[in-house]
C-alpha cells in the first residue's frame, strides 16, 4: 500500500539557521504516527510544510502517491499547538465557518456538527460565544472542527495540552476511533506514555534531522539491552553457577521465590539460558526488559548530541 504521506529530503532554512535538514519520512496508511523530538527540533516546521503553510526549500512531499497540491488540504485536518478560536464569535457559526473553509457546504457542516456536538455533550453551547466556554470546551470544539470534514490524514500537534485527564482520555479514544475508520493520524507530542499507548510508528527528529524511525515495536527492540528478570524456586547457589558464563549478574535475591536480574552476554540466547536452568530449578516467571519510549527518547537524543 502506498504511504499516505511521504517526505523526501525535505530541507528548510530560516534566516541562516537550518530548521529541517534532509528529512525523509513514510507515514503508512491507517496508522498512528508519532512525530517526536525535543523543543525546537523542527517538528512544527515539518508539520507546516505538510500543511502547505510554508514551502520547503528543497525536497518533495507526496500525498497518497502524488505531489501534494492545494486540493489536498481538504483531505487533511490540522490541530496546531498554537490553537484558538475567534472569541467573539458564536460556537456554532464559527464551527460552520471553519468547515466551509475545508470545503463543506453550510448545510452539510451544520448537520455533521450537530452529531459531534451531541456526542461531546456540548449541544446547548451552539449559540454561546466562544469566550464564555471553558478552556476544555474550547479544545473540544477545536477537535471537532479538525475532524469534521473526515480527512484522510489528521495532524495533531500536542493534542493533549490543555485537556484534563477525563477529556484527554475521551480525545485519545476518538483518535483511535478515527484510525479504526481508516484515517491516518500524525501525532506530535512530548508525552511518551501516550506514544506507547496509541502510536504504531514513530519518527524522532533532533536538531533538524531525523535520527530514528520505525514501528514502535521495532524501535524498542532496537534499543533493548538484553536485560531480563527471572523468578524461580530452588537452589540459588546452583543457579548462580549455571548463569555465570552466560549472564552479567545485576542482582540476586534468594528466598522462597528467588528473583534474579541481569543482562545476557553477547553470543547467548534466552533459550540456552533457560535450557540450562530448567533441569535444576522451577521457573515461575521470565521477563525480557524492553526499554520504554521515554528512555529511548532520552538516549537517542543524548547519543545524537555526542
Amino acid at each position: 500500500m502506498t504511504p499516505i504521506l511521504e517526505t523526501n529530503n525535505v530541507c528548510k532554512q530560516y534566516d541562516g539557521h537550518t530548521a529541517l535538514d534532509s528529512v525523509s519520512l513514510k507515514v503508512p496508511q491507517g496508522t498512528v504516527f508519532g512525530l517526536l523530538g525535543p523543543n525546537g527540533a523542527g517538528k512544527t516546521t515539518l508539520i507546516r510544510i505538510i500543511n502547505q503553510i510554508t514551502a520547503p526549500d528543497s525536497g518533495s512531499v507526496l500525498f497518497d502517491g502524488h505531489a501534494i497540491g492545494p486540493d489536498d488540504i481538504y483531505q487533511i485536518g490540522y490541530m496546531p499547538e498554537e490553537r484558538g478560536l475567534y472569541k467573539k464569535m458564536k460556537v456554532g457559526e464559527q464551527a460552520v465557518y471553519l468547515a466551509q473553509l475545508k470545503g463543506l457546504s453550510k448545510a452539510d457542516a451544520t448537520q455533521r456538527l450537530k452529531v459531534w456536538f451531541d456526542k461531546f455533550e456540548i449541544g446547548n453551547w451552539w449559540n454561546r460565544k466562544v469566550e464564555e466556554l471553558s478552556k476544555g470546551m474550547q479544545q473540544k470544539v477545536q477537535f471537532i472542527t479538525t475532524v469534521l470534514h473526515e480527512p484522510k490524514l489528521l495532524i495533531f500537534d500536542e493534542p493533549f495540552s490543555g485537556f484534563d485527564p477525563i477529556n484527554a482520555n475521551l480525545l485519545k479514544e476518538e483518535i483511535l476511533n478515527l484510525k479504526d475508520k481508516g484515517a491516518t493520524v500524525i501525532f506530535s507530542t512530548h508525552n511518551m506514555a501516550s506514544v506507547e499507548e496509541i502510536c504504531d510508528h514513530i519518527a524522532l527528529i533532533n536538531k533538524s534531522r531525523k535520527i530514528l524511525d520505525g514501528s514502535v515495536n521495532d524501535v524498542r527492540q532496537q534499543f533493548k539491552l538484553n536485560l531480563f528478570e527471572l523468578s524461580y524456586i530452588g537452589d540459588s547457589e546452583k543457579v548462580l553457577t549455571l548463569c555465570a558464563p552466560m549472564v552479567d549478574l545485576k542482582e540476586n535475591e534468594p528466598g522462597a521465590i528467588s528473583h534474579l536480574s541481569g543482562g545476557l552476554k553477547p553470543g547467548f540466547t534466552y533459550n540456552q539460558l533457560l535450557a540450562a536452568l530448567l533441569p535444576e530449578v522451577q521457573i515461575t516467571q521470565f521477563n525480557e526488559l524492553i526499554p520504554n519510549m521515554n528512555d529511548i527518547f532520552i538516549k537517542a537524543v543524548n547519543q545524537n548530541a555526542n
Partner: protein
Amino acid sequence: MRKILTIIEREYLTRVKNKSFIIMSILGPLLFAGLMIAPSLIMNMNNTEIRIVQVVDSTHIFRGQLPETDYIKFVYMPDANLQKYKSEFSQSGFYALLYISHQIVNSDNAVSLYSDKNINLDLRMHISNAIEKRLENEKLRSCGVDPGILSAVKTNININTIKMTDDGREESDNMTLKLVLSYLMGILIYIAIFLSGNAVMRGVIEEKTNRIVEVIVSSVRPAQLMAGKIIGVGLVTLTQFALWIVLTFCIYSAVAPMLMPDTAAIGVEMAQPLMSQGGSQLAQAQPTTDEMADELKAMLGTVGNINFGVIILSFIFFFLGGYLLYGSLFAAVGSMVDNEADTQQFILPLSAPLLLSIIVMTGTIANPDSPMIFWLSIIPFTAPVSMLTRIPYGVPYSEIFLSAALLIATFVVCTWLAGKIYRTGILMYGKKSTLKEIWRWIRR
C-alpha cells in the same frame, strides 16, 4: 474564490452584527442631523419670542420710522424723560428700552439700548441698521436730495462668479458649494480610509492573538485571508456610510419641517454648519427670508454646473484605491506585531501622508491650482484625499487619469509587498519584528 467569498461573508457579518456598528449607525445620523438642525433651531427659538422695544426718542425723527418684523415691535413713548422710563422699566414688561439722544447727528455714541436681559445680536443689528438707514436718508434730505432719487439709488449687489471653461462656455460658479463639497469629501475619505485601515489591522492582530490564524492558513492561502479581510472590512465601511447618508436624510426630512416651518431656509441651513466655521456666520446680520430664498435660488442655479458624475465616480474610485492601498499596509502592520500597543511605531509613519493631505486641505480652498496641491494630488499616498478636495473645483481629466493610474500601480506593488510581510508575520509569535527582519521576509 469560493473561500474568499466565505471569508468576506464572515468578516462582513461579524462586524455588521456587532453592537458598536449598530450603535454607530444610529448615533452618527442623529449627530449629523442634529448638527444640521441645531443652528437654525437656536436662531428660530430666539425669533419666536415677540420682543417689544420701548423707544425714547428725543430727536423725534424716528417716530414710526423703525421697520418692524414679525418678532420685533416698537412702541414710541410720548416724551423723552429717560430717567422716568428707566426707573419704571422693570415693571413695564418691555424687552428693551431704546434711547436716542439729540447728539445723534454729531456723535456715534448717541444711541443706547437698556435691558435687564442679554440683548441678542440680531436685535441689535436690526436696530442699528434701521437707525443708520433712517439717519442717512434724513441727512441727504436735509441737503436737498429728492426722496424719489433716494429710492432710485437704493442698490443691492450680488456678485456672480463665472468660470470660463476651455471650450469657451461660461459657467456661473458657486464657490460656497464647491468649498463645502471639497471639505466634505476630503474629510469623509480620510475618515473612511483611516478607520477601515485600522479595522483591518485590529482584525489581523485579533487572529494572531487568538491563535486561530494557523488553523485558517492550513485551509486557505494567507493572501486569500488578507484579501477577504480587506474586502469585507471595506464593504462594512461602505455600508456604514450608506446607512449614515440615508438615515441622516430620513431624520432630517422628518424632523426639519416640524422644527423649521420656513421651508426656504432649508437649503441655507444645510450649508450652514459647514460654512459657519469659527462663528463667522454670527457676525453677519441674519439675512431676511427673501435674501435667503435668492441665495438658495442662485445656489441651485449653479448646482447644475458642478459635474456630480465625475465627483461621485472619483469619490468611489479614490476611496477604493486609497483604502486598498492603506488597507493592505495596515494588514501588514497588524501581522508584524503581537498586540495593538506595538503598532504605534508603524502607524505614525504610515498615516503621515494622510494627515499631511488633510492639513493641506485648507490651502486647497485658498488656491485649488497651487503646485503643492497639484503634486499631492498626483502622489499616490496623498492622492485619495488631495485629489478629492480639488475635484469640485474642476480638474483636467488628464490629471485625474494620471493620479488614478499611479494609485493603481502603487496599490498593486504595496499589496504584493504587504502580502509577503503578512504571510510570514502572522506565524511569528512572541518577538518584535525589526525592520531588518521584515526586509528579509520581503526578499524571500
